[in-house]
C-alpha cells in the first residue's frame, strides 16, 4: 500500500463539554480526491485542523508518506507539504489580494525588499484558471465573499503542496466558479496531488471524489468508494435516519402583497430593480457571483443608501432611513457574511440568538431571562444546533452551527418580510430540511420571504417565484412551474435577451 500518502490513526480530540472526535481513522491515496462528509459539528473541520497542526490531538498518530509525524505545528506541516483552505475565511482584510496569497512567502529582491512586480504577475497566473478579474492590488475587504474564497483557493494552490485540504471551498460559490474549481481539481489530480474535499453540497461529491468518509458525532461511520454508494445512502449514514424528502415544499395560500420594490437603483451595484413579495410566498433570487443580489437586499434594508426607487410595505410607501428603521418597519435581513455581519463571536449562543428580541422580552430594560432561555432552548432543539449549552461562545461552534444561530436570531423575531441571504450556506442536508420547514412556517404565519441563494436546486425547489439577477438587474422572473435549471442558468449567465451588460467587477462593495 505504498500509494497511501497520509494516514491518520485513532485520532481523538475533546473540547470543554464536547468530544469532537472519537478514535477516527482516515487515509488518503496519492492522486485521489477523498470526500469527507457529515452533519454540522460532526468533527470534519476539527480533523483537518489536527492535520494542519493547528490543533493537537488528544490521542492518535499521523503518518505522512510512510513516516510518522513527530514535530507538530503549522510550520512543520506546511513544510511537509500539507496546505489547507480553512472553512472560515482566513484572509487579512486590510491587505491586498497579492499580499494575502503570498504571505510568508513573498518573492524578494536583493536587499530585503519585496518584489512587487513578480508578486502581481504571479497572482495573475494563479487566478487565470478561474477566469475572474480580480485586481491583485485590491484590498480583500472590498471583495465579495465569493471572490474572497477564490483568493483563498488561489493561496492554497500557490503552495504547490501534494496534500490539499478543502474545507467547504464551494460554500460561497455559484455553479460557474464551482465548475472551474472542479476543472482545477482534475488537473491537480493529474499531477498526483491528493485532495481532501469537504462539502455539504452532496451533489458535488460524486462529481469530484473517488472515495468518501462519513463522520457522525465525532465517529467514523465508513469509508467507501463512491461507486458503491448512492446519495441517499450517504445521507442516511450522515444523519442516522432516512430523509424522506430533501425539499419539503408545502403549499401555502398566497395573501396580499407585503413588500413591493419599484425601480430601485444604486450606482455601481444595481439598476432599476422591481419586484414584489406577497404574504405566504417565498421568492427566490439567483444569479452568479457578483451579480449584485446581496447589494440589492442591503439597499432595501437601508444599509446602503439608494439612489432611486420606492419601497412599499403593506401597500404603503415607506422611506427607510437606515437599518434600525427597516427593522422597525418589519424587514429582517440575514446577512451572508457570517463573521462580520451575522455574529458576535465572543458572545454566547443565547446572547446571539436573542439579540433581536431583547426589546420585546424585557421589562424596564431588565431581561426576562427565563423566557429567553426557553426560547433559545427550543431553537437549539428544532434546528439541532450542536452546542454543549446555550452559554457556549459562538466562536467555538462549527461553521454550520454558527449559521444556524444567525437563522435562529431572526426566526425568533417577528418580521413582515424576511430576507435570507444564502441561508443554508454550510448547513448539512438534515438541518436544511428543518430550516426549510421553519421558513415555510414563517410564510404560513403570513410573512413574506425573500431567499437569495447560490444553490440552484434549493431555489428551484423551495421558491414560489424565482428572480434571476444579472449585472445588477433582474433579467427574468419565473413562476415555480415554468422554471427549469437550464433556462434559469442561461439567464443567470447573461446569455439571453436584455442581459447584454457586463458584470461590474472592479467597483468596491461597501462594507
Amino acid at each position: 500500500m505504498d500509494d497511501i500518502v497520509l494516514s491518520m490513526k485513532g485520532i481523538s480530540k475533546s473540547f470543554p463539554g464536547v468530544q469532537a472526535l472519537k478514535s477516527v481513522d482516515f487515509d488518503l491515496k496519492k492522486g485521489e480526491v477523498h470526500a469527507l462528509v457529515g452533519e454540522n459539528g460532526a468533527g470534519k473541520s476539527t480533523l483537518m485542523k489536527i492535520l494542519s497542526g493547528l490543533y493537537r490531538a488528544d490521542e492518535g498518530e499521523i503518518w505522512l508518506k510512510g513516516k510518522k509525524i513527530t514535530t507538530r505545528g503549522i510550520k512543520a506541516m506546511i513544510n511537509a507539504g500539507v496546505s489547507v483552505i480553512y472553512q472560515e475565511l482566513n484572509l487579512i482584510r486590510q491587505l491586498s489580494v497579492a499580499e494575502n496569497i503570498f504571505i510568508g512567502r513573498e518573492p524578494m529582491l536583493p536587499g530585503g525588499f519585496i518584489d512587487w512586480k513578480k508578486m502581481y504577475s504571479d497572482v495573475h497566473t494563479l487566478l487565470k484558471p478561474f477566469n475572474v478579474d480580480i485586481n491583485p492590488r485590491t484590498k480583500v475587504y472590498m471583495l465579495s465573499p465569493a471572490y474572497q474564497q477564490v483568493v483563498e483557493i488561489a493561496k492554497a494552490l500557490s503552495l504547490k503542496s501534494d496534500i490539499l485540504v478543502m474545507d467547504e471551498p464551494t460554500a460561497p460559490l455559484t455553479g460557474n466558479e464551482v465548475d472551474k474549481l472542479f476543472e482545477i481539481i482534475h488537473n491537480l489530480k493529474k499531477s498526483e496531488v491528493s485532495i481532501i474535499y469537504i462539502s455539504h453540497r452532496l451533489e458535488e461529491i460524486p462529481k469530484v471524489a473517488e472515495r468518501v468518509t462519513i463522520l457522525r458525532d465525532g465517529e467514523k461511520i465508513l469509508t467507501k468508494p463512491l461507486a458503491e454508494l448512492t446519495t441517499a445512502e450517504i445521507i442516511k449514514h450522515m444523519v442516522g435516519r432516512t430523509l424522506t424528502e430533501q425539499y419539503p415544499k408545502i403549499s401555502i395560500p398566497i395573501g396580499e402583497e407585503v413588500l413591493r420594490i419599484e425601480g430601485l437603483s444604486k450606482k455601481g451595484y444595481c439598476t432599476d430593480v422591481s419586484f414584489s413579495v406577497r404574504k405566504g410566498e417565498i421568492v427566490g433570487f439567483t444569479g452568479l457571483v457578483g451579480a449584485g443580489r446581496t447589494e440589492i437586499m442591503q439597499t432595501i434594508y437601508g444599509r446602503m443608501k439608494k439612489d432611486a426607487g420606492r419601497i412599499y410595505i403593506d401597500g404603503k410607501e415607506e422611506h427607510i432611513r437606515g437599518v434600525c428603521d427597516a427593522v422597525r418597519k418589519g424587514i429582517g435581513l440575514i446577512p451572508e457574511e457570517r463573521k462580520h455581519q451575522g455574529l458576535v463571536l465572543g458572545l454566547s449562543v443565547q446572547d446571539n440568538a436573542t439579540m433581536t428580541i431583547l426589546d420585546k422580552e424585557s421589562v424596564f430594560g431588565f431581561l426576562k431571562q427565563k423566557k429567553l432561555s426557553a426560547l433559545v432552548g427550543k431553537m437549539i432543539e428544532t434546528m439541532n444546533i450542536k452546542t454543549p449549552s446555550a452559554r457556549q461562545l459562538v466562536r467555538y461552534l462549527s461553521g454550520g452551527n454558527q449559521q444556524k444561530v444567525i437563522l435562529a436570531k431572526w426566526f425568533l423575531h417577528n418580521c413582515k418580510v424576511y430576507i435570507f441571504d444564502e441561508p443554508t450556506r454550510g448547513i448539512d442536508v438534515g438541518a436544511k430540511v428543518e430550516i426549510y420547514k421553519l421558513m415555510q412556517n414563517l410564510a404560513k404565519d403570513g410573512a413574506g420571504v425573500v431567499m437569495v441563494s447560490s444553490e440552484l436546486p434549493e431555489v428551484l425547489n423551495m421558491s414560489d417565484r424565482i428572480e434571476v439577477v444579472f449585472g445588477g438587474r433582474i433579467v427574468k422572473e419565473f413562476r415555480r412551474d415554468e422554471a427549469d435549471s437550464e433556462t434559469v442558468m442561461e439567464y443567470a449567465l447573461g446569455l439571453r435577451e436584455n442581459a447584454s451588460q457586463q458584470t461590474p467587477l472592479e467597483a468596491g462593495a461597501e462594507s
Partner: protein
Amino acid sequence: MKVKFVETLKNYGIILAFFIILVVLSIFSPVFLTVNNIINVIRQTSIYGIMAVGMTFVILTGGIDLSVGSVLGVSGAICAGMLKAGNPIILVIIATLGVGIACGFASGIFITKARITPFVVTLGMMSIARGLTLIYTKGYPISGFSPAFRLIGGGYVLGLPIPIIIFLVIVIIAYIVLTQTKLGRYTYAIGGNEETVRLSGINSNFYKTLVYVISGATAGFSALILTSRLNSAEPVAGTGYELDVIAAVVIGGASLNGGRGSVWGTFIGSLLIGVINNGMNLLGISPYFQQVVKGLIIIGAVWLDQLRAKED
C-alpha cells in the same frame, strides 16, 4: 457548568494575585490588616474605582475615555462654585452629576454622529474640560463648604464611610445592569461586533453614546466625593487619573478591543492598585523604588492572570 467554571477561572488568576499581595503585605506590615487601614484603602480606592466602573462600560464597547480625569475636574469645580454661591446641596449634587453627564454626552455624540474615533474625541474633551475648569476657577482652588456637604466624603453610615457605600452601590448596580439588562447585553455585543449589532436592527449609536454618559456620570460621583473629602475643588484635580482608571479596568481582565471584561474584574483591579499604593507606603519603600516595584507587581499580577489569554 464546565463553561461557567472556565468563566470563573478567567477572573481567578487576578484574585489569586490579589490575595498573594494581601498576604505578603500583612506579613511585612502589622498595620496593613487593621480595620482602620482597610477602610482607608477602600475609601481611597473609591474615587478611582467609581470611575473605573464607568470606564468598564466604555471599554466593553471597544471605546476608551481619556477625559475622565478632566471631567472630574470640571464637575468638581462647578460643584464647589455652586456651593459657594449658596445653592442647596441637592441641587448641587444634581448639577455636578449633570456636568459629568453633559461631557460624556458630548463625547458620545461626537463619537457616534461625527464618527470620530473615541481616543481622539475624549483626548480633545480632556483638554477642553481642563481648560474650562481653569477658566471657571481662574486657576484658584475653591474651598470651604458646609458640614452637610462634607458628609458625602467624610460621613459614615452603619460604621461604613459614605464613599465606600457609594462605591459598592455603584459596583452592584453596574453588575446588575451588565448582566441583567438590555443595555448590558448590547454593551458587550457592540464591543464584540458592532456591525452585527447594527444589522440586527439595534440603534447601536444610542447605546454607544450611553456608555460615555455613564462614564461621565461616574466622574461626577467621584468629583462629589473628592471635593467633599478635600473640602476644596482644585483646578488640576483629576489630572492623569485616566491612566490609573483604565489600568484598573484592564488589570481586571477587560480587553481594550471590547467585548470582554466584567465589573468584578474592575473592582478587583481597582483594589489591587489601591492596595499596592497603600502597601508600599506602609512598608516605607522609597518613592523611587516604589515606581519600579509597582510596575513589576502590575505586570506580575496580570501574568498570573494570563490563563484567560489562552482563550483566544
